[in-house]
């Protein structure tokens, strides 16, 4: 009995499901995380409070609970045209954005204050200072933790499998329901996750070395 070959289409579907969840949620989380980080260091108090609330709320809520809210509560509050996939992306990206925000913020803090002062004294606005001067310099320190966060995101996406989104973990459930040897299923599922996480690590290693050369 060959679990993988017998069910290749299923594995493929699950693998692509996890890749799509990770890629889409990761992209949204990155944008959202940087924006919220900007809020947190902004000179406007309401934005700072919003950023702090966002991080506190999302970082301290178990992801499973966020999924329950996204999948079971939000549709009852009117978001009933959203698909399970979209709701899962919403939960995953909001959750991950809180962590990315904090990674970016710590990166911002590693850039010396003088850089921001120099930019401001040239007449740059807050957003210009952040975009042109601070973030590019923060990128290198921020890359390794963000890589880890995206790897964590790939693995966290398994929770979506319990909420009607087809991904690698649903493959495991489907196949063990059919009675295949659970160890073999897990082995292949694990390998599939490894492919995704290795890919993410490789991309980030590449970015790190490229940035190192550019300096």
């Amino acid at each position: 009995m060959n679990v993988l070959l017998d069910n290749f289409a299923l594995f493929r579907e699950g693998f692509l499901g996890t890749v799509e969840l990770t890629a889409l949620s990761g992209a949204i989380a990155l944008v959202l995380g940087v924006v919220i980080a900007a809020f947190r260091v902004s000179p406007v108090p309401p934005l700072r409070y919003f950023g702090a609330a966002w991080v506190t709320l999302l970082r301290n809520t178990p992801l499973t609970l966020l999924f329950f809210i996204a999948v079971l509560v939000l549709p009852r509050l009117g978001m009933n045209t959203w698909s399970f996939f979209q709701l899962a992306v919403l939960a995953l990206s909001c959750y991950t954005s809180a962590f990315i925000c904090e990674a970016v913020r710590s990166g911002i803090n590693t850039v010396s204050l003088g850089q921001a002062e120099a930019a401001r004294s040239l007449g740059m606005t807050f957003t210009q200072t952040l975009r042109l001067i601070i973030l590019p310099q923060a990128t290198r320190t921020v890359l390794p933790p963000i890589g880890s966060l995206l790897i964590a995101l790939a693995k966290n996406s398994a929770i979506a499998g319990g909420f009607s989104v087809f991904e690698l973990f649903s493959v495991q459930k489907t196949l063990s329901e059919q009675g295949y040897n659970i160890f073999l299923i897990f082995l292949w599922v694990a390998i599939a996750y490894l492919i995704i996480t290795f890919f993410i690590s490789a991309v980030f290693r590449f970015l790190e070395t490229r940035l190192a050369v550019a300096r």
Partner: protein
Amino acid sequence: MTEVSATDLVVLKDVNKHFGALHVLQDIDLTIARGEVVVVIGPSGSGKSTLCRAINRLETIDSGHITIDDKPLPAEGKELARLRADVGMVFQSFNLFAHRTVLENVTLGQIKVRKTDKKAAEEKARTLLDRVGVGNQADKYPAQLSGGQQQRVAIARALAMDPKVMLFDEPTSALDPEMINEVLEVMQQLARDGMTMIVVTHEMGFARSAANRVVFMADGRIVEQATPDQFFSNPRSDRAKDFLSKILHH
């Protein structure tokens, strides 16, 4: 350069600032005329750096008024950014943008703030870099330059914005002794060209030769103002006498 005129460019009135319990600026009244070169000296902790940084609102003040070219300093925002573009600032630690080349350091403000087109900005940047003597370093990154070279680039970066006034916050304090002169020469040239300058420094030689006026600060107050000749040969206050005796005997 701008025509030397008698009108006041920078005016500070009743300026007060506290750092916690420390009263770092006490009832500061100071007026700088267009084209004037004012050197601010005083012992460390006297508030001279804070004064300099308050003029472009890198430090906020608790009370009082600061106007530049008759316009009061606005609160944080676009308006302030526009005003800061008119006030050049040179820092003790250079603060060149580490991820940008020397040329980019000098063009960035022109392009992003002044909206100058790239070609014109580069042309101007190269002229300025030549003028401060680092034209051949344009494509290097700041970390590849010596301290003196970096500070000269920083001056060129500030000049590229066509500022109405230049603030120098201890521009030579972080430099090795052999590099101090190359920076001071650039500053002296600027002064000769008629640039309005406020310079916080410990370089008495520069104060003597380039300043129109010396402002002596101690404990957050302006203790004495005079022409360099007057101040150095005949200080009136005890604090100034004490200070001068300490630094001139070195």
